[in-house]
């Protein structure tokens, strides 16, 4: 086993330091190919991803395990990303079955729910210290969805298998310019209920680099609120193989109606840049004097409009590839038997 060197990637799978770099990149006419010359993403520079790959076992990703930090930012309220969640995710394919396990690290939650393990059909919530099962639930996922899902790995993807499975399920599949393979899923495969309908769902692959580059779902609620969720995986090259080291997700919610009852003179602030800046020292003086008060309900944009864009960034840390023991999934393997 050896520690692999990780290198950042450009274009669809890169992390650029600034918009300027991005435009330079476009001007230079880069494509989606993998190179090793781009600087790493600043977030990853600050939080370097260590990737340990047991290359003695396989050059394919058969198991993947990582600590994950989840940061969120709401464009209507936040000016900084906030740490929302931490967990460890582990997936492994054993005898053609993909298993997933989530271990929680938060100490503030109910001690009964510290781990979840699933094979896509059965999910078990349990206490990993005592192995006491708290809950079993059965998933009713359409087989084609489950099969294609299991092929979406944390690195290079077997696209020919994806194509054949999509064909078998008669999914809408199209090749687009820029080496893109797009698969759309019919509504009949997607979850809907009386309150909401999953209007569409698609996944997009980069056929040159054989990776997933995007997934998108559109949900519509009975009141007309539309939520479009787009997830873009972020990869790094390890031994010339792309390894997922995070995701960038936007959840764009459009609420069709405005809240009534605002006075006509309500000030609308669209960006923090519209406001004058006070130094922290001056602010402290004015607060002490009873002239300055923290605004706990700052909203950017029209406060009558509840639409928002939430950005969710997942950062992987201490990635381990092909090092996961089957024992981690013993509970569900035995349960299914």
């Amino acid at each position, binding site marked *: 086993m050896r520690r692999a060197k990780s290198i950042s990637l450009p274009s*669809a799978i890169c*992390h*650029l330091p600034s*918009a300027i*770099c991005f435009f330079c*990149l*476009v001007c230079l006419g*880069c494509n989606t190919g993998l190179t090793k010359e781009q600087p790493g993403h600043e*977030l990853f520079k600050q939080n370097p991803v260590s990737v340990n790959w047991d290359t003695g076992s396989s050059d394919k990703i058969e198991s993947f395990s990582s600590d994950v930090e989840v940061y969120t930012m709401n464009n209507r309220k936040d*000016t*900084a990303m906030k740490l*929302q969640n931490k967990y460890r995710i582990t*997936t492994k394919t054993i005898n053609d079955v993909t298993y*997933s*396990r*989530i271990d929680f690290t938060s100490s503030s*939650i109910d001690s*009964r729910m510290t781990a979840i*393990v699933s094979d*896509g059909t059965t*999910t078990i919530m349990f206490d990993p210290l005592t192995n006491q099962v*708290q809950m079993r*639930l059965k998933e009713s996922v359409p087989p084609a969805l489950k099969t*294609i*899902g*299991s092929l979406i*790995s944390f690195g290079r993807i077997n696209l020919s298998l994806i194509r054949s499975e999509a064909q078998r399920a008669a999914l809408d599949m199209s090749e687009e310019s*820029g080496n893109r393979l797009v698969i759309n899923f019919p509504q009949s495969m997607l979850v809907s*209920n009386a309150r909401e309908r*999953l209007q569409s*769902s698609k996944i997009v692959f*980069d056929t040159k680099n054989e990776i997933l*580059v*995007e*997934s998108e*779902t559109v949900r519509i609620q009975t009141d007309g609120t539309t939520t479009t*969720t787009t997830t873009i995986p972020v990869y790094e090259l390890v031994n010339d193989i792309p390894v997922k080291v995070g995701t960038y997700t936007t959840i764009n919610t459009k609420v069709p109606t405005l*809240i*009534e*009852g*605002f*006075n006509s003179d*309500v000030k609308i602030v669209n960006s*923090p840049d519209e*406001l004058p*800046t*006070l130094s922290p020292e001056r*602010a402290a003086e*004015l607060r002490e*004097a*009873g*002239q*300055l*008060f*923290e*605004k*706990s*309900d700052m909203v950017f944009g029209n406060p009558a409009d*509840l639409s928002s864009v*939430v950005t969710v960034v997942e950062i992987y840390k201490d990635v381990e590839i092909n090092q996961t023991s089957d024992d981690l999934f013993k509970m569900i393997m035995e349960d299914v038997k």
Partner: protein
Amino acid sequence: MKKSILIVYLAILCSVLPLIAEAVARVDFIAAGTKPYPYWKFEGFRFDSYTPSRAGIESLLELEHSAIQDKEIKNSNTQKYALIGHSQGGLRVLAYPAFLKKRSESTEITVYDKNGKPETVSLSESDRLRYKAEYDNIQAVITVSGIDKGLKALDGGLGRLRSVIQNDAMTVYLGVNGVMRIDPGLMVILDVIPLTPLLELDQTRAFLIGLIPDEAGGFIKPLFYKYTNIDDVAELRDMTPNSEFIRKHVATTTDRMVRVPIGEHDVWHVTWTIFGPIPWVTREMAYTFFTMKEDVEVKIPPEMPVGYIVGRNSNTLSMANVKDPNNETYVRATCFALQNLFFAAGNLHLAQVGLGFGLINGSVTSSSECFAAATWMATIDAQMTEIVGSTESDGLVAKENQFVQKQFRDPGTGVVTYPHDNVVGSDPRGYTEFPQYNHANIFVATNKDVDDEYVIMLQQSVKQRKR
């Protein structure tokens, strides 16, 4: 936990619409006792049982003026007295001197009946003298957790409160749907209240309003139902910061929003190009936001000493304990249980994402929404603060709205102005804070420390009252 279930269902059931009501005076005469002066006690707004009415605060002042006059005439009383008002009563006692003084100087005034209907009447010389005599009898004014400059929760109109609560309701509602999509059986495992009643957005909203103690949030219910016209809830209209009533009798307040940097952070972006999506990052400054307040055009007569007693226990949920000492505990237990439920559901969705198909079936959205709902429950105090509109408050009224500024220093020029400096009290800043009291428990007779401050304020008023 069963009691918390009861709270939830009561909250939902309590969305019954009240009828339009007439104004009723809320004053009481209190003998001097150990204090230098007797006083008229002005009770606050009935947050826990508000009945919408077209009668605004001006109508209340008319009725209260009549009550005070009746007593004075009956007793031929020319004794000096103070006015002490709590909550909205603080706003009324603060407005009362300007109300009387204006009438003592006018030949024609607008009066409001108990239904809020205005009528223009002429004043005779004897009427004016009567108002002047009553004005002269007032020794000092004290506001206690006063809504002196309005209820910040209503800043910008009823829309602001509706917007905050609707946004909160959406957050929790989407979390509930996330639970239902993954497995409703989670509720049983985690001993959580059945969420089925919360599957409609308006029911979720009623549930959240039910989490707010009635002493603070009882008035919110009508805002979401029949009474959409602000004149139908005229007392609330008048309690809006910078309302016509406040500007007429108390002061006009100018707000300036400013930002204060707290450090740099990464902001991720994605740009779509013909080559596909490109993520990139910028370093940007994060800020906290503040409002700079300046009271201008103060209408409180300069010869009238005013004392401001400011409640500073900002724990809104603690106000529920006035009725039952365990209420806060029940609400927090409910929130904790729901936090765990949403958190578990979020992680179950994450497991589906880990298996790949969660990227297709909407689990990415649902996990994020469940975590947002869990965060809402985990930060219930911050959510209450957002509703109140200030991090510094008495659980209901923002600190800055509980007093009129004694002085203002222009941050640009350094020039100091004195909007209203005839202020009494033991704190030279112009208001006396009590960190231990919230809005619901600051105005009870057993608070000896507050009572002592009344005495100090009234003693100081001997020198500061000019006639």
